[in-house]
């Protein structure tokens, strides 16, 4: 068997899975978004009405704006946290065993399910929750803080809680590959800590940052469950609006929105990949 044939064979299972379980359903969604729907069944007649309805509605832009806002804020916070944690692990923890130990510590919350980690914030942040009761008993506040739960704050907090690890792992990985001699040389040449950070560490971690960004942004853009539960249904994202349409059997608008969302996310990922050549960097 030629090496070429071997590699073809080794990607075959994954290709099959991707084609059957992602490619075909996606193709269906795209097709359906152009089909006519009489409230009951689809007819394969081409129409642009679904897209016209989606594009002409100000709600679409509002919820896309809201979704992007969540993605941007979550991205910024997880990036700072992820970078700081990785930086500490790679450059301050000298002992390799301790380094690995601390890194594994970061993954402990992931031993429980996402849903449980999310739900457990509710009794903590609620009006009569632990945090509010604690503050009131300490005499710091008279009235419970209402903004803690069922708010943008709660949504972002949960996103950060759930998704920071997706930033830590790739950045840690990229930083760990940085040759310590380069930093030594910079120090010998009289560079300041900030100069080293700006001219060496950040540029050399950019693959990790790019990958982490892709993870976090796509996770937030595709979420509806966190936003529904943590905003108490008071905030809407693209997917939660799609869910409302699907629940009432109004599929075509949902399909059109799905296609639009895929286009936006693909656009974002493509931009990131253009800025950072992840493939070339990973091959190093």
């Amino acid at each position, binding site marked *: 068997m030629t090496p070429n044939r071997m590699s073809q064979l080794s990607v075959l299972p994954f290709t099959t899975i991707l084609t059957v379980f992602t490619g075909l359903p996606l193709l269906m969604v795209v097709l359906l978004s152009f089909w006519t729907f009489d*409230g*009951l*069944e689809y007819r394969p007649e081409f129409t642009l009405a679904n897209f016209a*309805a989606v594009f002409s*509605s*100000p*709600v679409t832009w*509002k*919820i896309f704006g*809201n979704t992007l806002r969540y993605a941007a804020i979550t991205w910024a916070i997880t990036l700072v946290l992820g970078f700081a944690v990785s930086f500490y692990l790679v450059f301050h923890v000298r002992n390799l065993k301790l380094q690995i130990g601390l890194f594994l510590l970061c993954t402990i919350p992931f031993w429980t399910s996402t849903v449980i980690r999310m739900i457990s914030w*509710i*009794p903590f942040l*609620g*009006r*009569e929750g632990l945090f509010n009761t604690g503050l009131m008993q300490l005499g710091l506040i008279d009235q419970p803080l*209402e903004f803690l*739960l*069922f708010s943008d704050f709660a949504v972002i907090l949960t996103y950060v809680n759930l998704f920071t690890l997706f930033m830590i792992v790739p950045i840690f990985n990229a930083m760990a590959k940085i040759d310590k001699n380069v930093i030594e040389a910079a120090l010998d040449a009289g560079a300041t800590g900030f100069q080293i950070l700006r001219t060496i560490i950040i540029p050399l971690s950019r693959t990790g940052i790019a990958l982490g960004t892709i993870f976090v942004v796509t996770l937030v853009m595709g979420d509806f469950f966190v936003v*529904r*539960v943590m*905003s*108490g*249904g*008071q*905030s*809407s994202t693209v997917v*939660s*609006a799609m869910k*409302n*349409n*699907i*629940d*009432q*059997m*109004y599929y075509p*608008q949902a399909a059109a929105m799905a296609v639009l969302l895929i286009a936006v996310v693909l656009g974002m990922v493509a931009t990131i990949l253009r800025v950072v050549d992840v493939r070339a960097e990973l091959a190093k």
Partner: protein
Amino acid sequence: MHSETNAARVSRRTMLKTLAGAGAGSVLGAPMIWAQSLKDVTLMHVGPSYSIFEDIAAAASADLGFKVEMQNAWTDAIMARVVSQPDTIDIADLEFWAMQRIWRSQKLQAIDTAKITNWDKIIPLFREGRNFDGSDMSRQGTMPFEVQFAEGEGFASAPNGRATMMPTIFNADTLGIRPDLIGRDVTSWAELLNPEFKGKVALINVPQIGIMDAAMAIEARGDLTYIDKGNMTRDEIDATIAILIKAKQDGQFRAFWSSFDESVNFMASGEAVIQSMWSPAVTAVRGRGIDCVYKGLKEGYRGWGNGLGLMSHLEGIKLEAAYEYLNWMLTGPYGAFVARQGYYSSVPETTKASLSAEEWDYWYGGKPAAVEIKDPFGTVMEQPGRSRDGGSFEDRIGAIRCWNTTMDEGEYLVQRWNDFVAS
């Protein structure tokens, strides 16, 4: 009620014996095979969480001698399955308004009401579209009677013996409140929008139902009068959503709930003190020892009804089994089960026989509990001396002012509802 089914089975057996005794070999063959293979039938009943119970499936299977399986899904998911995967369902358990959406798909077959033994005992609301005293009921939204009888792809306006679904359970929905946290009497839907409860109000996040609860409140407050709250015009939807957006921006709402347990937790944790609610959720909150009342309000209730539909693919022996199952569902155990979470059965007579006298007086009579009242799962949810709010069965059902529905402008409504949620 058991005796009734037993009697039916005995009579069949007796009939077979009689036929065998007569030596009618040619006639004998057919029913023998029929009786033989009835045991092998499996019926798949798909319904919403408040209607699907393992205990009931087990009891039905034991009584009927063939297997009944139950699956739980949301009404919308069941509608979608009836239309696109009809073979995966035998008995569709749907809200009546769903008929407006899916009857024309012809995936359900009409039920011959002559084959339903207790059909004439079903309350007149379903059979004739009338109140108990013979007066007219509100037709705002989808009153079940409007879609009760089938005529081709549409609906007959008078009873014709061909039912779209066999009515099973129904209720008059209202607001749930926490009297201990409110500290005064609540008598009107308008309280939902009362700034006194700012930040402590929750609505159901199902556009078609949420907007009707809001409309009850808006109408009660005197802002708008609807021609039909259950079938709003675009202008009415716009006006309603505008009021809701204003209220939301003023911080009136604490949350919108999308699942049963969310509604229970909002109420139990005190995040909401007044909200849209289902009767079993009130029972669940009370079961935790927290005071929660399903408050009867002066403007009346929002009603709904569920029924069982026969899928078109049922035929021969499976269809016979399905009819036996439908008949069984009206014999009492099911009605008693749902009664204990505050719902009513379409045939109160058989339900009464399956409930204790104290339970009947509490749930249907609206009288103070004579003993501890338990929910279907055995948890005490009411102490002696207290009564359910809103009075008797007849009082509550008679005060229904609108019905769960699907609106002609449904797609527009969902769009505006998304707008409201995103505002």
